[in-house]
């Protein structure tokens, strides 16, 4: 293990998060078995009282997980200097077999945590614990993921050794190799950009429809679900576009496909400006759609649709920001990939 403050912080966050989630799952189990709003029994009152604690603690943990993803990637990029052959986060992540799995688990945890935060926020708006059952079922679903995530990060950090010979992004994201990274890199730049533009338009259209208050409820619901699906589509298309086209524009180099080097200081941290809105937009869009899949509780008659609409609008705004940054990258780049 490398004693490095960000690593210590991440391990600390993983351990705190994992412990708290395990504890909360036990509570969730009990709650799902015994929850009965109609009952006035002592045990029900105790459950109701305790649910505030668990909600607060989990909101804290989920917020921490979201921060941990950013810190994880940032740190991976910075530590590249310590490994032989590493130029950016790819090298650091590749320095151990657990590196990329840990990243994927952290990303999954990010989305799961955002969904949970949305459910928790909406639940807090109704006075009769309308989404409590759903929230704790979701928590039970997230708990194994959290354990896996913590295990993978811990394994990764314990496995890391300085001076390990690792591979650089150049050898991973090259079109003529096997694997999903190579597939993404071999995508033609023009069609990748077309794909992401189409996805953004779709997400924008459905999002605006889902966010407008004037449509009938049924239409809103469909629009919202469509927006959720479109958000996932944007996420995939954006990753392809970043690997196959946008990163090239950033580096002004026709063969450098790395989606991690754009996080570096040399490129003005432009990667963060791309990824943060992209992740936020996807999470918000998916969160809005998730709300619409639930049966509408009476106590949330007003609040839930307004929150779902707000999420859709926020998602569109985040995607618009992503699109603006991407367009600015293409516009300001000295590289000409298409036409020319």
């Amino acid at each position, binding site marked *: 293990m490398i*004693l490095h*403050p960000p690593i210590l912080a*991440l391990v600390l966050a993983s351990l705190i998060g994992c412990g708290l989630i395990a504890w909360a799952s036990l509570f969730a189990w009990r709650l799902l078995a015994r929850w009965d709003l109609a009952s006035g029994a002592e045990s029900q009152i105790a459950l109701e*009282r305790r649910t*505030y*604690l668990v909600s607060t603690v989990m909101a*804290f943990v989920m917020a921490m997980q979201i921060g941990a993803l950013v*810190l994880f990637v*940032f740190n991976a990029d910075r530590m590249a*200097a310590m490994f032989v052959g590493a130029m950016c986060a790819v090298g650091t992540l590749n320095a151990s077999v657990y590196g990329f799995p840990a990243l994927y688990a952290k990303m999954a945890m990010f989305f799961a945590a955002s969904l949970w935060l949305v459910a928790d926020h909406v639940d807090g708006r109704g006075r009769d614990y309308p989404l409590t059952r759903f929230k704790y079922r979701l928590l039970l679903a997230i708990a194994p993921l959290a354990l896996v995530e913590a295990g993978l990060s811990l394994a990764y950090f314990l496995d890391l050794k300085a001076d390990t010979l690792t591979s650089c992004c150049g050898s991973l994201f090259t079109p003529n190799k096997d694997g999903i990274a190579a597939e993404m890199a071999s995508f033609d730049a023009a069609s990748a950009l077309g794909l992401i533009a189409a996805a953004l338009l779709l997400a924008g259209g459905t999002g605006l429809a889902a966010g407008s208050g004037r449509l009938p409820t049924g239409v809103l619901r469909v629009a919202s679900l469509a927006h959720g699906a479109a958000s996932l589509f944007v996420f995939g298309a954006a990753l392809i576009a970043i690997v196959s086209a946008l990163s090239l524009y950033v580096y002004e180099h026709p063969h450098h496909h790395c989606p991690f080097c754009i996080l570096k200081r040399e490129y003005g941290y432009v990667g963060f400006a791309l990824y943060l809105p992209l992740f936020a937009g996807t999470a918000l869009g998916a969160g809005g759609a998730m709300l619409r899949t639930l049966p509408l509780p009476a106590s949330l008659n007003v609040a839930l649709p307004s929150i779902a609409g707000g999420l859709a609008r926020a998602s569109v705004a985040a995607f618009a920001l992503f699109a603006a940054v991407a367009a600015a990258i293409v516009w300001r780049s000295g590289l000409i990939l298409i036409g020319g």
Partner: protein
Amino acid sequence: MGAWATRQRYLIDFAALSLWRHGARSLGLWLIYVLVVFVVASVILYGAAIRREANAVLDAAPDVVAQAMRMGRHEMSTGADIEKLRGLRGADRLEGRLWGYLYDTSAAANFTLQVPSGFDPRFRLERGEAIIGEGVARLRKVEAGKMLFLISPARRFLKLKVKQVLPLGSALVSSDLVLVGEADFRAFFDLPAGQYTDIAMRVRNPAEVGKIAEKSLLALPGHRMVTRADMRRTYEAIFSWREGVLVALLSGALLAFAILAFDKAAGLSAGERREIGILKAIGWDTGDVIGMKLWEGAVVSVGAFLAGTVAAYAHVFLFSAPLIEPVIKGWSTLFPRVTLTPTVDALQVATLGFFTVVPYLAAILVPIWRTASADPDRVMR
């Protein structure tokens, strides 16, 4: 502003109000918090700044240094070794370096005696001339134009006229240097002509450094090749390691502080208890009280984070870290007066936030909930 945001605004207002009223009570805790952040932040900022400085400076170091080895020990290189490397294509500015240590009894310090490379005319030295680093000038109380006397372990004398004192700004790399001419160096250390401490090499194309180091190893099998990346990694590892050890040790202090915060948050005064009872009696629900208390915690911890970090910044960059220096300095009599370029790295700040804000908030969650979920009639009685 949405209803949610308005509500949060009122909660913040309330939290701030309550903080102000009970401020004196939590002031002591807050000051300890600031102190903890200050110590951790000083370590992290200092580490980051010195790492960055080392990185920037080593950027200009030789691409490859070839050092002869014999029986696992360093050995002098010869002129013949240099000739063997001269044939390598891509190797530029190839030269034997001459440097060694001198324990100076009068200053009780180790100086690095070095012959400046012949490539820069500004450092050309005649016999009896020397250029010295800031630390040497400070310890021996000499300045440009004065004389400097050195005695070798073999009792050989060297009388040098100080031509120049290297600028204070470069002390981090030059503090203990005594630059002398080659003839003086060889005579002083009784070193035969054609022997060099090691061989420094610059490579025209940075992408070829690895290749050239490999080829050099083939040409000089007894040598070890130290590339610039090796030098960098050495320092990166040293500083990260030290920083990590310090932070790991300090996390004990953080834990102790979190326990203190937990204890403090658990033991509410009767006044605060009553206040919450009244709030709940007039219609606040548990979620509202938790929200308010969380805002209170956030104001306290973000405030302490800012105050501690700013104080650490001033400590490290305005006052050159007087509290950290002794740790690195050890028993060195010759410690460079390091001026560090102020840097604030987003990663360091984020790490610091994780280290200081997260444990505090985690510690106060349960007490907050206890307070907030108590029955109003019970607490008001």
